[in-house]
């Protein structure tokens, strides 16, 4: 693959009930990403937006952010899915040789609709939807299958919540930063057994944008470029009933492909910091396994060892992760933005000292149907 770099990032603060319109949110991050890269819109020749018509409550929702994302008068396209997938598409278009600099935007204002109803509507209308499935109950089924198979405990899941909510205290963009104990998580209200209130991510409003550039353009950028060293995505079966819920085959495949591209043989040793899509606490443990940070079934032991905490061998979600801010479709791109800040040494109180290689991970679909894995580095291949 030719060299492509991320040269600009911008995020809003994530919160519930942000009073800006979603075009105003997109404009905020487009402007921030351009300023970060030291570019003007004239330098951008390709735009990838990320919208979901159900979430935004209008058909062809991408058209409503045309001006805010810089699409006006430009070659613009749209992805419906997590921001990591929009970035993947932006990367492909950058590699086409047609474009110099690509802006990728994504926004979420799910608080304006009915999130639980919206998640219910992701399911097949003939079967699971009319039985009332939603993100929480389906994830509870996945958590049960996974924990039962490997003996992962609720306390181990709670450790993820404690760690990430504490990390969020160092992230000015985070929505929910908390100083809590395992006991607090265990005693929080049971929502859908074994998932409790403090095991789940909030519904957050917000937006994120990044700028991807060709090697030539990246060398002229204001900030030190962050190079894309490996990237891949993979999709599992649509219906949960057709998946082995005790591990993620799609994530294992995506991670292996991305690692091969990046020349990573031992991810736990070679990656300095990871930002993963922990929509629920148990997911971070499953994703450790899918990403090859530990063997299948050992995610609980890994969090218990403290190695994924700040100061550990491989800090996971220094930003507080998705548990601390969950703008749907934005959250994966925010993982990439956070990885970029880490690799530039600009992550402030959540900085992992000397990070050279970072991993960012996004998911789309119920219980992680699609996984997208990015390996980024401040060192060139």
């Amino acid at each position, binding site marked *: 693959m030719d060299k492509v770099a991320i040269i600009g990032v911008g995020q809003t603060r994530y919160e519930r009930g942000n009073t800006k319109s979603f075009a105003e949110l997109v404009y905020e991050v487009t402007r921030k990403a351009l300023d970060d890269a030291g570019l003007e819109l004239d330098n951008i020749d390709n735009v990838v937006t990320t919208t979901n018509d159900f979430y935004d409550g209008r058909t062809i929702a991408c058209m409503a952010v045309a001006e805010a994302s810089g699409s006006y008068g430009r070659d613009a396209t749209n992805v419906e899915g997590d921001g990591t997938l929009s970035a993947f598409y932006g990367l492909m278009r950058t590699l086409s040789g047609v474009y110099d600099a690509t802006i990728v935007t994504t926004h979420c204002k799910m608080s304006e609709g009915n999130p639980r109803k919206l998640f219910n509507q992701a399911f097949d*209308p*003939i079967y699971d*939807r*009319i039985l*009332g*499935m939603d993100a929480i109950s389906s994830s509870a089924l996945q958590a*049960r299958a996974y924990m*039962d198979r490997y003996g992962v405990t609720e306390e181990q899941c709670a450790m993820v919540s404690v760690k990430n909510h504490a990390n969020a205290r160092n992230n000015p963009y985070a929505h929910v930063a908390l100083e809590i104990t395992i006991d607090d998580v265990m005693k929080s209200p049971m929502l859908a*057994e074994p998932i409790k209130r403090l095991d789940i991510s909030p519904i957050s409003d917000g937006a994120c944008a990044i700028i991807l550039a060709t090697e030539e353009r990246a060398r002229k950028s204001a900030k030190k470029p962050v190079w894309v060293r490996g990237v891949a995505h993979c999709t599992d079966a649509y*219906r949960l009933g057709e998946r082995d819920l005790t591990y993620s085959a799609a994530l294992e495949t995506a991670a292996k492909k991305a690692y091969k591209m990046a020349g990573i043989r031992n991810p736990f040793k070679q990656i300095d910091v990871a930002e993963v899509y922990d929509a629920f606490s148990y997911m971070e443990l499953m994703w450790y396994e899918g990403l090859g940070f530990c063997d299948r079934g050992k995610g609980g032991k890994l969090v218990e060892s403290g190695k994924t905490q700040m100061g550990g061998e491989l800090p996971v979600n220094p930003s507080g992760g998705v548990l601390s801010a969950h703008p749907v479709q934005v959250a994966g791109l925010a993982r990439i933005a956070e990885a970029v800040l880490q690799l530039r040494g600009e992550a402030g109180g959540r900085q992992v000292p000397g990070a050279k290689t970072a991993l960012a991970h996004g998911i789309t679909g119920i219980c992680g149907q699609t996984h997208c894995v990015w390996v980024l580095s401040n060192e060139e291949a």
Partner: protein
Amino acid sequence: MNEKEGSDRELLEITSGEAEHVYYWHCGHYVSKFLLGLRDKKTILGIKCSRCGRVYVPPREVCGRCFATMNEWVDLGTEGTIYAFTVVKLPYIDPNTGKPIKVPRTDIYVKLEGADTCLMHWLDETDEKKISVGAKVRAVFKEHRRGTIHDIECFTQI
């Protein structure tokens, strides 16, 4: 503050209103047969991929793994085991009616005997201490059936 200043600062919201978008989805040739099996024969039909041998329930046309057309129907009967369960405790709006659903309610994945995939449904037990992965269950059918997944009332442990 005077009235004019106050109105300048106000941030407004507008509602989408009460209009609904109602869809009429064709179930297709495979799902229709499955639903007719529930309605007319009180049985659960699956379909087998002739390439990989995997039996899917609910059935559909294409095996995603082999990208092959499936046409070998399998009568799976009504019994299986619990693959995963959750007792849902937070109030929820029933998508069928728009009214609050009664909680606790138990969602399960059932692996029917002879199937390689799981069917999602409800269990008539809401005490999690009395439910376990691997427990045997049987489908309970409604007396009046209309050709929907709700023709199965729920599953019960046997």
